């Protein structure tokens, strides 16, 4: 974990690659997260809902994005973390999470930085677009 103090706008502070998402990962995450929506684990249910296959929980991808963030900054410095789920993450996706400092700002009287975050699959398609406010 490095000190955030020296960071400036444009710095890439977050970068982490993840193993391909398997059906097993989705089954484990179903139990681990309490999100038992069958659309992520039950192929019959997913097909009936109009999808070709089960697909990744958006919150699993957000958990990966959060992990790539807490690898890069002190977890206790994170003030806010948000994402937009831009596209469905398919099975086998190999995700890479990245984050760049976009702004140094005062957040409720505390010096912070804003980090723009993105999770992309191996084709470069953005799946999650997010941002974090982190104390510096």
């Amino acid at each position, binding site marked *: 974990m490095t000190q955030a103090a020296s960071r400036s706008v444009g710095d890439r502070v977050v970068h982490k690659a*993840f*193993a391909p998402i398997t059906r097993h*990962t989705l089954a*484990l*995450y179903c*139990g*681990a*997260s*309490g*999100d*038992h*929506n*069958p*659309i992520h684990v039950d192929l019959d*249910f997913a097909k*009936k*809902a109009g999808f070709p296959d089960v697909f990744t929980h*958006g*919150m*699993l991808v*957000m*958990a*990966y994005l*959060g*992990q790539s*963030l*807490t*690898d890069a900054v*002190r*977890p*206790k410095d*994170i*003030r*806010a*973390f*948000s*994402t*937009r*789920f831009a596209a*469905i993450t398919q099975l086998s996706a190999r995700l890479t999470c990245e984050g760049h400092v976009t702004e140094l700002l005062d957040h409720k009287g505390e010096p912070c930085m804003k980090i723009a975050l993105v999770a992309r699959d191996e084709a470069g398609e953005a799946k999650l677009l997010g941002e974090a406010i982190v104390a510096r």
Partner: protein
Amino acid sequence: MVDRSAIGRSFAPVTAHVEPGRLRYFCETIGERSPIYRDAQAARAEGYSAIPVPPTYLFCLEMMDAENPFEFLTELDIDLARVLHGEQGFTYHVPAVVGDTLTFRSRVTDVTEKKGGAMTLIAVVTEVTRQDGVHIADTTRTIVVRNPKATST
């Protein structure tokens, strides 16, 4: 179909316990290797009273300990198969750690129609308080409902 009359609706509060075993399982599942999230001593060295939860875990706690995790959908008469997660946000005031008992209170703050009624966006805000009454976090989520196609005229 959900309409703006749902704004202001609140749901049964959910009380959840931050249990070490479940948290370890979550960390295993997402491949979290940081000692802060796995080792109480490492967490204490960072100034926590116990192992803290990873950034998205508050969302999981609420679902795990809810009597009906999809109450919000059934209450608003929404079919689970038509729901996608649009946005999710967390604002952290105080870290949540193993041993905490947290209460989640959710309410609908906005309902918007998109694409000529093809989709409805529902915004829900959840206030998270600890057993001692301290307000530790707020979460926001936007749920996207894919509406059935209206019969053409």
